[in-house]
């Protein structure tokens, strides 16, 4: 049995990727199981999906704790969560990144393939749909599943030209890995991995990570400070100080209280801003632009 853990952000398609892997494996006569980590759906939040593939029906029903493969759909995720947790000694990591893996932060040593899945997706779709390139790359790395089965799974899910585009992107991910100069890079544990399992609020009390439970599950105020939701962000609001007059409209509309006015200037708290872009839309002076986090 092989076990795969997919890390992505809500809305990115980690769950779909897991599902399509089982479809692809099933078409090759294998059995499989795909399921998401259970919780409320949150766009942009780190999510996980799990896959098991085997020659016989999969019976166990728990999360993948010892993955053979870790597939990471967003290169900022290793900053926030321990994506390498439990990776088997001979396990392999795939990450969507145009940057060399060694320049990212990692919680452990591991062999990592960097797949330019976003670049491939922008070329094929004009949108960052990273799944097909990542699964195509996985097909090139593992002998468990063929590229053709992956392409067929996409084609069945997205009939017609969209399926063909997915097939093309999968091919490009596959071809990338097979280039003679593309090898897994042995990354090492970074000295400071930001945010991994750390509560950032010094005054967090009951209900915050690492604190005991209240007997009636009453939670202290401000414990949400311990959840740095800024990690959910794809894009960040950038305030042009010359245009902003400190009117405070953005403060009124921010659903996460992540904006304040200091000396007639809007200040964004990037620790908690989820990058929804409402502030940018409501600003009557056009002082707030949304900038890609990738940049």
């Amino acid at each position, binding site marked *: 049995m092989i076990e795969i853990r997919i890390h992505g952000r809500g809305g990115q398609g980690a769950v779909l990727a*897991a*599902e399509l892997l*089982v*479809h692809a494996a*099933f078409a090759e006569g294998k*059995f*499989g*199981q*795909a*399921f*998401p980590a*259970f*919780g*409320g759906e949150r766009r942009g939040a780190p999510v996980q999906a799990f896959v098991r593939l085997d020659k016989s*029906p*999969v*019976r*166990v*029903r*728990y*999360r993948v*704790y010892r993955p053979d493969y870790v597939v990471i759909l967003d290169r900022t995720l290793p900053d926030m969560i321990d994506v390498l947790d439990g990776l088997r000694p001979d396990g392999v990591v795939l990450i969507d990144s145009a940057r060399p893996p060694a320049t990212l932060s990692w919680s452990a040593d591991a062999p990592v393939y960097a797949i330019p899945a976003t670049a491939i997706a922008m070329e094929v779709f004009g949108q960052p749909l990273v799944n097909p390139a990542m699964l195509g790359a996985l097909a090139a790395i593992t002998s468990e599943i063929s590229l053709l089965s992956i392409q067929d799974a996409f084609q069945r899910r997205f009939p017609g030209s969209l399926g063909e585009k997915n097939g093309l992107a999968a091919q490009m991910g596959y071809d990338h890995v097979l280039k003679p100069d593309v090898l897994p890079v042995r990354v090492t544990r970074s000295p400071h991995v930001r945010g991994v399992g750390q509560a950032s609020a010094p005054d967090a009390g009951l209900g915050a990570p690492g604190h*005991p*439970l*209240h*007997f*009636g*599950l009453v939670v202290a105020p401000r414990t949400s400070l311990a959840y740095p939701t800024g990690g959910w962000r794809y894009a960040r609001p950038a305030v042009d100080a010359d245009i902003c007059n400190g009117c405070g409209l953005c403060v009124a509309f921010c659903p996460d209280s992540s904006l304040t006015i200091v000396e007639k200037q809007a200040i964004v708290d990037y620790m908690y801003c989820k990058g929804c872009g409402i502030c940018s839309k409501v600003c009557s002076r056009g002082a707030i632009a949304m900038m890609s986090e990738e940049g």
Partner: protein
Amino acid sequence: MTRGTVSVMEGSMAVAKAVKACRPAVISAYPITPQTHIIEMLAQMVAQGELEAEYVRADSEFSAASVVAGASATGVRTYTASASQGLLLMTEVLYYLAGARLPVVLTGTNRQVSVPLGLQPDHRDTMSFRDSGVIQLYVENVQEAYDTHLQAFKIAEDHGVLLPTMVCMDGFVLTHVVEPVRILDQVDVDGYLPPYEPVHYLTPERPSVFGSYTDDANTLEFYYLLQQAVLGAKAKVELAARDFRAAFGRSHGGLIDSYGAEDAEVVVIAMGSTVGTLREAVDVLRREGAKVGLIKVRCFRPFPAEEVRQAASGADAVAVVDRAMSFGFQGVLATDVKAALYDAPAANRPVVMGTMAGFGGREVTIDTVREIVKVARQALDGHLPAPDDSNFIGLKPELLPVAGPG
């Protein structure tokens, strides 16, 4: 004999397909995670004309249960589904359905009950109907969920039964998993499940009163009849599974299923999706030399006391994996297992240890089972003064408050 087509799909889709194939006339539900996908898919099937049924989107679970109660009373096949708080809101109506002997089939997609507000699977929600007269079947995988919905209508509508029947499937673990499942052709389902022929139903041609008042002159006799009906359903649960096997060549057990229990020293008893993990654990632990076996309680009500007694009485120790607790006493399943084994001859009566594992959705892994078996062995060897009735497996002491309330 192996009929139908295997394809990969979400557990909820498989359940929706099973319900569709059973041709209910009325479906009513109110959405709640993790049941939502099932009823969304059924609503879509009705909207697209694939399923000829009345789909009533209710304004609450109480209304949904009331709609199917009313519809069932007119003598048609009905279906609903819910979870957690939603099931609890149906409680009053479910008791009514059992008393009025209306064979509604419902899915309980198991989810913890607030407080704490959460989405994880455990059995507190469906267990709250333990004493209602509702038949309860717990399933371990998507195939069993599909097959058991077909069987549930057959059991519920049997003229010797006529009781609401609930298929309990662990939320997310089974509703949201994507795996291969064999879906039967409509003609085969029709061959297995004939149209519902009601015995008692509301019709203007033969006016009658449902749910009428009684006093102490006959309520006791009424309860006696209800008890006979629920107990009588045991044979029908077995029959539905046997017929299913004869027609389609597969079985998930009748009232119970056992795996390696015959010669086991330690037998683990469980219900629902943890059973799959336990099967794997039995194989792993047996390879390591431990004589471990498994009994799956598939039908929780009526409780298969005799079957559990026969399957477990050869063991030295029985460890019950409970996903629901009667606070102030012990695990709900453990209580029933003990009651069943009390009637075994003293020489064949194993030590019974209740464990709270999988409770609140805490995952049961192979290592969890290893720990459970270890504790059971310690109890056997007398290393524990007495087996604890409520072993919370995997408890994290660091999360417990230093001082209690007040």
